[in-house]
Every structure is written in structure tokens, then in C-alpha cells.
């Protein structure tokens, strides 16, 4: 620590380090929540950033007895709702009650980001190479189903079913990983 720092600066530094730790642990849950409510990826990233800014501004008021994820999800919910309201009525989006239900549900997911990514990694390894190809096309290349159908020489519906099954396989696999952790 720098001796020339004032007590106020030292407190600010400690608070920032604490915020960084909390944010690091909560980031993916918050981002998953925002991305699930706002499908425009760039806009969702902006909202996550706005949540970070709002959270850091109010961090001094954060009650350390509470869950940081729950507190930050509250901020995220307001930001998402505000964004959806400003987008106008013609957009297809969730209402306030659904957003509250989704935020509560995200808070209830137990795994930390690190653990979750480990589980996801293990589950991805179990997929067939063809399934990985679907994931690659959909998530890395951002292909629409019609494009994937052209590349995989399948009908669009068959692609939708294939991707749905892969997602369900992964969700089930991650649940199993959770159960194994709980039993251990």
C-alpha cells in the first residue's frame, strides 16, 4: 500500500477490491439474466455495463448481510424493465411479473460461474462431434436455423429439433452434475 494514500483513498481502494470480487462471482448470472430478457446481444451487453455502473455507485449502501447476486439482480431488473419500456409496445418482450420471476429463479441457481463452466465443459465433452458442429454454427458463427439447414443438409425443422435436443441434453447433464456435487 502506498504510504501517501489518505485514509479515504485506502477505504475507496478496499471497497473497489471488494466490489470486483463480488462482481466477478455474480457477473455471469447477471449477464445470463439480462441476455435472457433482451435478445439484442449488443444492447444486452450495454445493459450489463449499466448495471455494473449503477452497482458500483450504490455499493456503499449494499447490505453485506444480503446476497450480492440478489441485490445486483434487483438493479438489473429495473434496468431491463426501463429498457423494454422505452422500446415501445410493438416489441415482443416479457412484462414486469415475468422479469421478477426470472430474476428470482436466477438467484436460486446455486453454482458459481467457475463451477458452472466446469460442469458445462464436462457436458460439452460428452456431445457427439455432429452435436458440437450445431453448437459451433449456432453459437460461434451466429447462424440462423435456415443457414444451418443449408450447411447441414437438413430441413429447418430438423435443425430446430436437433438444437433443442442438444440444449435439453446439456441442461439435464448439468443438473446431474449438480446432484453429484450435492451427494458428494
Amino acid at each position, binding site marked *: 500500500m502506498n504510504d501517501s494514500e489518505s485514509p479515504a483513498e485506502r477505504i475507496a481502494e478496499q471497497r473497489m477490491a471488494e466490489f470486483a470480487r463480488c462482481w466477478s462471482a455474480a457477473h455471469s448470472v447477471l449477464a445470463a439474466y439480462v441476455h435472457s430478457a433482451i435478445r439484442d446481444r449488443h444492447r444486452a451487453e450495454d445493459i450489463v455495463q449499466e448495471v455494473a455502473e449503477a452497482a458500483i455507485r450504490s455499493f456503499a449502501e449494499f447490505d453485506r448481510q444480503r446476497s450480492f447476486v440478489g441485490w445486483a439482480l434487483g438493479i438489473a431488473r429495473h434496468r431491463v424493465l426501463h429498457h423494454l419500456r422505452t422500446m415501445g409496445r410493438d416489441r415482443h418482450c416479457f412484462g414486469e411479473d415475468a422479469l421478477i420471476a426470472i430474476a428470482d*429463479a436466477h438467484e436460486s441457481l446455486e453454482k458459481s460461474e467457475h463451477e458452472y463452466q466446469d460442469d458445462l465443459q464436462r457436458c460439452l465433452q460428452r456431445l457427439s462431434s455432429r452435436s458440437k458442429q450445431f453448437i459451433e454454427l449456432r453459437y460461434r458463427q451466429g447462424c440462423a436455423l435456415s443457414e444451418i439447414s443449408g450447411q447441414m443438409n437438413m430441413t429447418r425443422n430438423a435443425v430446430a429439433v436437433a438444437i433443442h435436443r442438444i440444449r435439453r441434453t446439456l441442461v439435464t447433464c448439468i443438473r446431474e452434475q449438480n446432484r453429484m456435487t450435492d451427494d458428494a
Partner: protein
Amino acid sequence: MTPEQTEFELLISRYMNDEAGPEDIAALARWMESSPDNARTFAEWSRLDYGLGYQVERRALPSHELTQPPAQQWSQAALRLAVAACILVPFGFLAWRQTRSEAARGGIARVAYTKNVRWSGGASVAGGEMVSGEIELDSGIVKLALRNGVEVTLEGPASFEIKGKHRAQLHHGLLAARVPEKAIGFQINTPTMNLIDLGTSFGVMVDPAGPTDISVFEGAVRVRSEGGYSAVVNEGQAAQSGDDRSTFRIRDYDARVYERVWPVALGVTGATGSVRVVRPGPPWDLTKHRDDNQLTLFPEVSRVRLHDEIQVDAMGAGEVRRGKDQLSRTIPSGKAVRSYLLQFNATPKQDRAKAAEVILDGQIEFAVPIVGVIWTTDRLKTTDALFGAEGARYRSPSKRGLEIREEMSPDKGDLLTISKDRRTLAIRIICKSGLDHVRILVDAGP
């Protein structure tokens, strides 16, 4: 699992495919509001969707294992952020926001393309990301995609430094840059002149032993010398620093200087055979580009998001055949694409019937996958307005498309082949007189 759960899981999947309609979304909302377990199911699927996007976007999905989880990377970035934030917060929140953003996204810039690269003193790049703001290049070509949408293509030897979201420094070397509308105001400093973009693409060359050159390919830039002299440099012009560093002079630019980096800056990583990429310059009059022995590739709109789906003549990998049954030839609405036009334009002939037939072939390699190819006259005409380069002059005679080989007569006609990875288009066309066009649409990202 109940039939109701199955039905809602299908709805969630449709929502994640961005294909849910208002009724689907209303049904999903009702289902989630009716039970915390249902909302939890949606949260589990959402977390997976985000986790896959995050994980797969950052590195190719490995066949055997996935590497360091993003959480660890974020954690390290967050610690750097905490320190940075402590320093920056007293000076304003915006500075912190930028640092956080860079940290959260895992790097300062993405390395979009490299060719024959030799780094100087170790690579500044890991996992496709710039890990520090500085890049030292002994030789080769590197294309960087900055977080604000600016694309910088460097040719070694070069020393380049990103100094912030809106500012970079070229210490020495050569670069070509394209600045999208949202990043207007982007600034590049050199030892003698500073450049502020006014919505454009341009080249900068800093020769330690000679003058600095700033050439404007499209739009305009404001150039300011070390001595405070300032002027707007328009497309087709170049600013060259004077001996005393305090002034510069404006002259017509020499496009040859940027010939190697210009195609890469356009997203074209290779052009072989009879194909050449048009030299940088003000809006082209395509009718004036005539050559009996070459196919010329023109950049068109650099990014357009489709409001409606569009029909194309080919989109999948493989040889393109007229009448070939393909499952889908529609690019869906909402997709962002970039467009190029490949042209054969014969010189005028007194007797067109006596003109000799020439076979021209070549390959064009793009930095990103091809999403559609248009080679029929009607579709070319109807898509000129949407994809055409701003200010460019197009000729639209009654016939300008290719005569692609038919499925049933495989040896007769023009030939187009899209490679398996959809990044390369091979072309072989029989030219005689008149005009042939092929419009190539590539992925312009999310």
C-alpha cells in the same frame, strides 16, 4: 416430464432461436409466473444459452476439451479492474467504464486475421485477442477489430498502440483503417501528425526516415500537425508531413502504397488468378472499369442489417448449379451482411460477334463466411439499391448475370464453387463481351 413441460421447453428453445412470436412470449411469461419451478427451468436454459454463447464465441469449440473457464479470466480481469478503478474513479467514471468494458470482454481488440506474421519481441496476442495495448510487428499483415467497431490492418514492420477506446498511436509502419459511423471521432496519432476521423476509411504510413503520409480512401479526416496546423483532408487526397514537422501539404494520394493492406482492410484475405481487388478510391464508376482479362472485385455496403429476408441464388458450400435443388436460399431478416460485387466488363468492340472468347478463373478468399451469392440478372438489379456502394455508378443492361452450368449439362456454362468453410469463392467464367456481375454477401457479425 409432462407434456406441458415438454411444450414449454420447446417454447424456450424457440425463444432462444429468436423465433418466438408475441403469443409464444406471452405463453412463456404466464408459464413462468405460475410456478417458481417453471421460472427456474427457464433460468437454467438461459444460463446454458449465455454460457454456450460466451464460451463458444471466445474460442472454437474444441473437439476434446474446453480451456480455461471464462470465470477465471474475468476474475483476473476484475482484479486488474479494481486497481484501475481505484486510480481512475477520482478522475471520472467514464474512464473506469472503458477499462471495465475491455476487461469484461476479454481483451482490447480481437485479431481478425494474420498473414505471415513475425512478432517483434514476443507476441502481443493470445487466443485471438490483443493482451496489451501495444503491438510490435516485424513482418506480415495483422487485422485488428477494435471494440468500438474500428478495423485496423497493419503491415509490418510496424509499432502500433491502442491508447483508449477512441485513440491509437502508430509509432512507425503502415496501416489501413475503416471507421464505422458509431466510432466517428476516432483518433490516430503519429510522431508528426494527428488524425481525427470524420467517418471514413484511410491509410497512414509512418516512415521513421521519411515523411508521414495520411491518405483518405473514403469520407474525410481532420489532420493536425505538431505545430498546430489543421486541415480537412478529403477522399482521394493525402496529407504529407513537411520537413519541419510543423506543417503538411495536401496532394493526390498514391494508392499503390496501401495495395497490400487495402484488400485485407476490406475483409478480402486473398484474391488469386484473374481476380483483382479494386484500388482504394472515391466512389467508383463501375462502367469505367473495363478489362478483357480480369475480374474486378468492388467493395459495396460494408454492413447492412436485413429488414426483410432476401432470396439469393446460392448459399451453401459446393458447386453452384442452375436448377440445383437446395434446401434454403433465403437469408433471414435481421441478419447483418457485407456485400461485394465481382465484375467482368469488356472493352467496347466494333463487332461483338467476332470477339474472342476468354476463360477467366480465380479465387476470392474472405475473412468471414459467405452467406449468399447472387448471379441472376433480376436479383442483381433488385438488390443494387440495398447492397450497392454509396455514390458508385452501376450499369444495368438487360443481361448482367452469369450463365451458370445447368444440373443436367455439367460441362457447359460458368462455374462458381463455395468452399466447405464458405470463406472462399472459386469462379470460372467464359467471357466474350458485355458485362457480367456476381454479388457476394458475407457474414457481418451479430
